[in-house]
């Protein structure tokens, strides 16, 4: 780890109006370095997903700022914010959100298509990344024909295909059995995390804590503890 890839300062977010107004995240500051695998953990409703959304340029904070690679994310206009997410952040959603009517290959190529790559070039790159995640032979299948673990790897391939510097995982093991979940995170640690990339993972699956470099623990919208992760031998 050389420098901070992400710097979040004093982030706060409220939801609702009037009497039902509730603070989801309260004055949270956080940083993540390149080459770091950072976990955000905590019980449901602790604000970890909200925090991750604000960091990744998806949810505008009510207070505070997020700087990613020197870009003040929340000072960007709508189109530039979308561009920021497209070029800098890779997302792996809890339910994968793959398009069932597209092939696995086409699903992976979507970020490249959005980044204005020609179709054939995008497909060639997507195929290369699918090979990396071990699914090269499944390229022409629809995601529905794949197992949960395979779909997770397709989602990872889609997230990394455009080589973003920040990767965001939302509950990556929630839809997987324990063994598959561990294999996925191990794969991310070994093949996806690089010295030029930081990985943020929201989870409450303690079985994968061992892969974290740091674990940020949240409760009631605040960070209550930041601990070093435990590397597996």
């Amino acid at each position, binding site marked *: 780890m050389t420098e901070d890839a992400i710097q979040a300062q004093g982030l706060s977010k409220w939801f609702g109006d009037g009497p039902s107004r509730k603070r989801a995240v309260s004055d949270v500051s956080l940083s993540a370095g390149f080459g770091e695998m950072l976990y955000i953990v905590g019980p449901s409703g602790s604000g970890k*997903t*909200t925090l*991750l*959304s604000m960091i*990744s340029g*998806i*949810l505008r904070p009510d207070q505070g700022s997020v700087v990613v690679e020197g870009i003040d994310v929340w000072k960007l206009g*709508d*189109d530039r914010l*979308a*561009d*920021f*997410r*497209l*070029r800098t*952040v890779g*997302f792996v*959603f*809890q*339910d994968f*959100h*793959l*398009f069932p*009517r*597209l092939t696995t290959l*086409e699903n992976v190529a*979507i*970020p490249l*298509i*959005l980044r*204005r*790559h*020609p*179709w054939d070039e*995008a497909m060639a790159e997507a195929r290369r990344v699918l090979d990396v995640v071990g699914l090269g032979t499944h390229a022409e299948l629809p995601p529905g024909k794949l197992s949960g673990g395979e779909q997770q790897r397709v989602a990872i391939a*889609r997230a990394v295909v455009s080589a973003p510097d920040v990767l965001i995982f*939302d509950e990556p093991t929630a839809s997987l059995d324990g063994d598959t979940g561990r294999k996925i995170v191990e794969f991310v640690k070994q093949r996806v995390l690089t010295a030029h990339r930081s990985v943020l993972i929201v989870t409450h699956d303690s079985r994968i804590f061992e892969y974290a470099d740091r674990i940020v623990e949240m409760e009631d919208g605040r960070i209550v503890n930041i601990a070093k992760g435990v590397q597996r031998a």
Partner: protein
Amino acid sequence: MGDHVRGILKIAYKLLVNDRGKFTALLMGITFAVFLMIQVTSMFAGMMMKASATVANTGARVWVMDRAVNNVAGSIPLPDYVLDAVRSMPGVRYAVPFFSGGALARLRDGTYQAVTVIGLDDTSLYGRPLLVQGRIEDIYAENGFIVVADEELPKLGNPGIGAEFEINDHRGVIVGLAKVSASGLFGIPTLYTTLSRAIQYIPSMRYTMSYVLVEPTSAAAMPRIKEAVGALGYVALTEREFIDRITVFYKYRTGMGMNILIMTIISFIVGLSISGQTFYTFTLENLDRFGALKAIGAKRRELVSMILFQAGVTAAAGYGLGIGLCASLIALAKLRMPDYASVITFANLGIALGMVLVIAAVSSYIAVRKVLKIEPFEIFRS
């Protein structure tokens, strides 16, 4: 179109057509709506074409008639001085009398058949049809009639040259068979003869001339002719104006137009309901993926273009299929029923296209609103 846009639209296309069930339902909705809209309006157009058949077949540039006339069959006889007056008007190259009336023809087997009798100016035979059998000069022969060889001919027992019949106890002989561009609306055979014979055979009121047909010296002369005819208390209409007047009559004074309008609106509503609902469901089903695309970095205009493209593809395909289906069924119907009154005009196609575009616009508007409203954050929260 850049590679980028092509790529996004390709994705949109695949999302659409790979969902075969919904795509089929969407296509069926629009196809059915287009089919109904074109079918109904083409029936009307067909009927209007038949209603104006005499005008179109005669080919006169200007028709002079009583002000109260609103369709060819309902002519009000004109006094002879109108013909003389029109002939003397500036801008008139020539003017001829024209007779159109109905009669009952007694056939050789003793049965009666209603016929339309067209009486042509004896001197010029202006407005005569194109003969497919016989010679036009034989119309001057004793009792000579030319019969139109259209789908109504069998009603006269498919007469050939020399066939005889009677009209009001006068003998008639077929001396020629003609073809015309359109048959009449009421399924009645048409006979052509000279004006003098027509008047002789068919009992008339005091006045005998149905119309005066005019050839103006130039198009620029038309306003002067109209004005002069108007001063006489009559009206001069161009061929187009007369056809429009007939159309207006059937459209607004017979209830036919309202029925057609209601049927067209029902077709539109059916199409809109099926397509709108299906497209909405289709978008709803993909909503979280659109949200994911938004999270990944798709811009609003890209998502909108995807939805509009999907709606456009469906509309275009449904429009084409609807036209094809309608044209096929009309062709089939005409094989079985030659006098089936239905014709697809550019106006029909235009109306259907306009309505399909409205269906696509409404459907995609609902979908676009839904997609633009979804927050990528919801994808995380789900």
